[in-house]
């Protein structure tokens, strides 16, 4: 092969791999991204059952109900509206009433959110950013709130 042909082979195979990667990325983005919503968004937009979403907000005071076999129900609120959540498993250490949480899962039948992941804050000083956003949207956020906690 001449120098030119070799270079063309090299560039060609490079572009081919790149094209495959771009195809994979686009396909994966369509299938696997998860949208983030606040409880108000969900109630207003009627998120279709079955699609994976993330919800951020505070655990409604007085809403936690634990039943045997590690089933837990609680409500997540952004101060304006709240949605009921069902979860099976062990909740994280900082999961408490009035605390910020981010949950991931699907909207189930009967308007109960079926969570398969519950994330709480790593540190008592900081709110998850998603929760802050949700509270800001509903107008229940005061600057400096997280710091004074």
């Amino acid at each position, binding site marked *: *092969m001449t*120098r030119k042909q*070799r270079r063309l*082979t*090299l560039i060609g*195979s*490079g572009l081919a*791999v*790149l094209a*495959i*990667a771009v195809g*994979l*990325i686009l*396909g*994966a*983005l369509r*299938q*696997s*991204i*998860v*949208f*983030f919503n606040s409880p108000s968004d969900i109630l207003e937009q009627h998120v279709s059952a079955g699609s994976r979403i*993330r919800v951020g907000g505070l655990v409604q005071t007085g809403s936690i109900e*634990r039943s*045997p*076999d*590690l089933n837990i129900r609680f409500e997540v609120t952004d101060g304006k509206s709240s949605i009921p959540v069902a979860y*099976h*498993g*062990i*909740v*994280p*250490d*900082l999961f408490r009433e009035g605390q910020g949480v981010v949950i*991931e899962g699907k909207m189930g039948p009967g308007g109960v959110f079926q969570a398969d992941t519950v994330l709480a804050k*790593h*540190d*008592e000083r*900081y709110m*998850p*950013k*998603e929760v802050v*956003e949700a509270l800001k949207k509903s107008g229940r956020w005061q600057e400096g709130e997280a710091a004074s906690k």
Partner: protein
Amino acid sequence: MIPELGHYALVLALALALVQSVAPIVGVRTRDDALMRLGSSTALVQFGFVAFAFAALVTSYLTSDFSVANVYENSHSLMPTIYKFTSTWGNHEGSMLLWVLILSLFGALVAAFGINLPATLKANVLAVQAWIASAFYLFILFTSNPFLRLANPPFEGRALNPVLQDPGLAIHPPFLYLGYVGFSIAFSFAAAALIEGRIDAAWARFVRPWILVAWMALTLGIAMGSYWAYYELGWGGWWFWDPVENASLMPWLAGTALLHSAVVMEKRNALKIWTILLAVLTFSLSLIGTFLVRSGVLTSVHAFANDPTRGIFILVILVVFIGGALGLFAWRAPLLKQGGLFAPISREGALVLNNLFLTTACLTVLVGTLYPIALEALTGEKISVGAPFFNLTFGPVFIPLLLAMPFGPLLAWKRGDIYGVAQRLMAAGALAILAVAIVLVAQYGRATLAPFGIGLAVFVMGGAVSDMVERTGVFRLPGATARARARGLPRSVWGTAAAHFGIGLTLLGIVCVTHWSDEKIVELKPGESTIVRHYHLTFEGIVPRQGPNYRDQIAKFTVRSGGAVVGEMMPSKRTFVARDMTTTESALMTRGVSQLYISIGDARSDGSIAVRIYYKPLVLLIWLGAVVMAFGGGLSLSDRRLRVGAPKPAARAAMQPAE
């Protein structure tokens, strides 16, 4: 007094760095030897000053000087000494100080050990290194000063985030930073080569040890971070595709590609422009990683504080350095002379393939990490990109790379014989097919992908072994001859085989843990038992324990296997008094390279607790593989060629002026 001295030392280091940014380059232009040599002295003294500043902050921490705001925020007088020490970098300001400490250390190492370097190259390298250092000294002094005092010193500190009070954290960030910052040397060498407008095989030989050191440190740093997340966060996962993890994976992928392309450049004087570009990109990705973690763009354990001015400052550094370097590249790269020719089927060809797949894999990670941030900035829509995305993109790109990996080292330079190599890989291939068949039969209908994952891992490991068998002739030649050949082989050859074998080990661990982990979530009352795999676990009850700065509620478990007690496991809920914060301390029991893993939930009023039990088969191989990879890097680094450096006359002769 001590914090003020530390602050002052940092200002002096900045002053020296500013001198070093200009003087050596002027020296090169005016052919003034004294000015060129000045860079070495300033680099050494600069390191001295930064080390002093760092020592000052460490002293403030060890003496619990709460008049220093940073110490008050992150330390507590009751914390064990080791955590007082590691708190130094368990916060934003301190970790940036560690960053520049390592940066100045590398500068000093180049000054001290770069004796063989051509004087002009060394001067330019040290100048570029000083530009980076100046930018980060300014960043620390203006936005993240760790030495700020409080007007009314409190009596007690607020303590380090309990999640970070762990031995894993003591060593994970320094190693990670050694890796990140180590690539700055490759960046400086690349920029220096572009400034000089010439480059040759000797350049690659000079820069390769630095790439190796950075790569080894980053490999170990990532592995330690992953192990820490595995046992500390209590979810039993070892990789979450968290943006912060991705931030360290991207420089690793690019750095691995750089390591390989530098070999081609050293041996065959080819891929020169590409290697320069990769060196620039690798450090750029390290900077992007620092930006992502330090700017507060992300929420995670690593994002210590959200101060917008810091984010903007780092963003400016990022744009100036990445943009500047790429601009320099576009302007000067055409001056560099094209390298040697090679056929597509050859060692060079295999290494090009390696680079192609590694950079593409890096691209998929980059897109997955930045896309949510970009989308939120542009449309305000918030999304999260998680493991499914990376499994669909990163996986398919990595599999062909691993399949091709055993072929590379067996191919000859310039023009290789693919059939000959395939013959030599027959044993490894047969072993792999056998492994696939056995697992397929044993797991029929249960795991569809796992058998092929196991087969791939066996092929990768078998390939590395075949390579060494081939080179030493251990089965073909008399024992004494084979031993003599083994001794005669360059260490770098052994290093390559070890590192490739390590990849196979990690893959084996990943496949086994992904497909054959057992997870059980149950509620147990004292005295009750549960069975996971072939282990019988009895919950004995809860015992309290008082630690130095925490209270533990330990859940005692007795583990039996086949009727015999094999040990006790004691996961706990740990309440840290200073922050009134509880963490879950999981318990691990290592059996061979597999692990039993328990983490507990809150205790109920009737004495029962929620328990999450995992059995993780061969899980330790994931990190053991990384250690073997780093060991391979170390072997390669100890190679005589790299240690002694190029013989001077030969190196000079190889220098070729730009056209």
